[in-house]
């Protein structure tokens, strides 16, 4: 168990991305990242993890397509617990994920989206499991990616993938049986939000996905943000904030931090980049070139996003009424 860290309301938790990743994402860490498919993935952090050549990560996700695929593509991930490895129309199955599994380079444990959500929620709530009726009768229950032996020899994974249990309240709620899914407490969670202050209070706009549960389940939390504001600002309308500052270890100001995925009210996903990624991902040599040219050759996300051509940037800029780029060419 970690010693309690005395939390200090007036202490700034501002860090550079490089320091935050170096400090909270050691090789072999159990990590989860926020966002969903092509939206609000913490991509600036993902690229920094790739730059720092982290290895042996154990990654937890529900449906975080792009971030998950790039971490896998860079060879950072050994084990993955996931519900969905896809990026919508850009990749019905994430390409580097698929290749890694088919080549036997990545060990996967399959759950459903709700189960992964419940597992983070259990971690956030401080209980060892939560129940659901989902997956009864399916191979999600019957087939385990991590063997029972492997599980029991690793104290950082629960002994069972899940447990099917009869309802101890005798048919209460017309329910005879439930599936219990085990809590996740990642070593570190990274989420990208629209707005945060230096203490760590954070606000997500649009759908929060399961970011809040992922954030609260973690031992350490890195919040990256589009806009860094004064403490008074977010406190004027605290009903709209989701993350209390005392959950946060590092606040990183990362404009365009979700790019090439979307950030509601700020920018849309970048179809040009996602297609370019797709083309690269389909071929191992092209993918190595992508890593070298696009990621390793930049020192940070600022340099990386400075390369987006101005027309492309303008095209994905969010329309103030709808929060996305109306009429964006997405073919």
């Amino acid at each position, binding site marked *: 168990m970690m010693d309690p860290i005395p939390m200090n309301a007036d202490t700034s938790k501002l860090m550079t991305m490089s320091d935050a990743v170096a400090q909270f994402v050691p090789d072999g860490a159990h990590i989860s990242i926020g966002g969903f*498919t092509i*939206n609000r993935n913490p991509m600036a952090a993902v690229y920094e993890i790739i730059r720092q050549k982290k290895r042996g990560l154990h990654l937890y996700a529900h449906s975080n397509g792009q971030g998950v695929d790039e971490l896998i593509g860079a060879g950072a991930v050994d084990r993955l617990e996931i*519900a969905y490895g896809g990026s919508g129309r850009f990749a*019905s199955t994430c390409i580097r994920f*698929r290749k890694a599994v088919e080549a036997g380079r990545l060990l996967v444990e399959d759950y*459903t989206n709700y189960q992964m959500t419940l597992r983070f929620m259990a971690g956030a709530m401080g209980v060892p499991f939560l129940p659901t*009726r989902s997956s*009864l*009768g*399916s191979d999600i229950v019957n087939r385990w990616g991590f063997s029972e032996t492997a599980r029991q020899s690793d104290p950082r994974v629960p002994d069972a993938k899940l447990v099917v249990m009869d309802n101890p309240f005798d048919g209460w709620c017309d329910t005879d049986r439930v599936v219990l899914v085990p809590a996740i407490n990642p070593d570190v969670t990274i989420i990208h939000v629209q707005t945060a202050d230096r203490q760590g209070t954070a606000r997500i706009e649009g759908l929060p996905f399961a970011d809040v549960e992922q954030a609260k389940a973690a031992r350490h939390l890195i919040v990256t943000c589009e806009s860094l504001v004064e403490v008074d600002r977010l406190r004027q309308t605290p009903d709209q904030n989701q993350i209390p500052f005392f959950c946060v270890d590092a606040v990183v100001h990362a404009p365009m931090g979700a790019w090439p995925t979307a950030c509601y009210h700020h920018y849309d996903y970048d179809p040009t980049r996602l297609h370019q990624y797709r083309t690269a991902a389909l071929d191992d040599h092209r993918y190595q070139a992508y890593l070298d040219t696009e990621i390793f050759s930049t020192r940070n996300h600022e340099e990386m996003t400075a390369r987006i051509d101005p027309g492309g940037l303008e095209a994905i800029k969010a329309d103030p009424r709808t929060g996305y780029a109306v009429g964006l060419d997405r073919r």
Partner: protein
Amino acid sequence: MTTETNYTSREMMAVAAAREIRDGDIVFCGTGISMLAAMAAKHISAPNSVIFFETGAIDSQLEEVPLAVGDSRVMFATSVNGGLAEAFATMQNRFTGRQVVGIMGAAQIDIYGNLNSTVIGDYHHPTVRFSGSGGACDVASFVSRTIIFMQHAKRKFVPRLDYLTSPGWLDGPGAREKAGLPEGGPACVITNLATMGFDPESRQMFLKGCFEGVSTDEVLDNMGFAVDVSQATPIAPPSAEELSILREKCDPQRLILG
């Protein structure tokens, strides 16, 4: 109503699915063609249906078609922007869950409407790895009625799934109840050739009807198992109105229609 002779099978599929949506349904949409079907239904026959995503968006006002359920387009002018936890709870909930119809696709389907969207081959050493369940198994477990999109091909309509990702009628009558699942299950399968239903007694798939210009034999030749075809009736092609709504209001860029 006039019919239109030039239309694609994807357009027919979207229209056929839209016709299955009842006014007042809460429609769970996956990625792709299911969104088009839900959008078309709202414009045609089910103006009071509610488009709803596992990501937490409830009654999205889709001015443009989303390319993923996490697309920002689903977040605009909703009734509530919640999270995944709330979205799935809506489907597992004993009251609201009964009002939800789920639309989903898969890589493989069997005669009981069970779906595989995880692997082809051995689970531990797969020949092909797919995305996995996402919310599909949750929806298939919880809601009263699901509509399934499939490409009609032998390798997809299989006698035995390589992996059962999402429960249909499992192995027949009473099986869902025995497994502990709530009432409900697959209502129909819409393919590029036909619409299939499930017999209320045997829970097995049967041919409801072929699309215009498709023969029963063509349907059967493209399946890995035999189905009852005795109840098949022809399915009306898309009307001019259905097509114009689909093309002009739902997907003018043909992002999903292709």
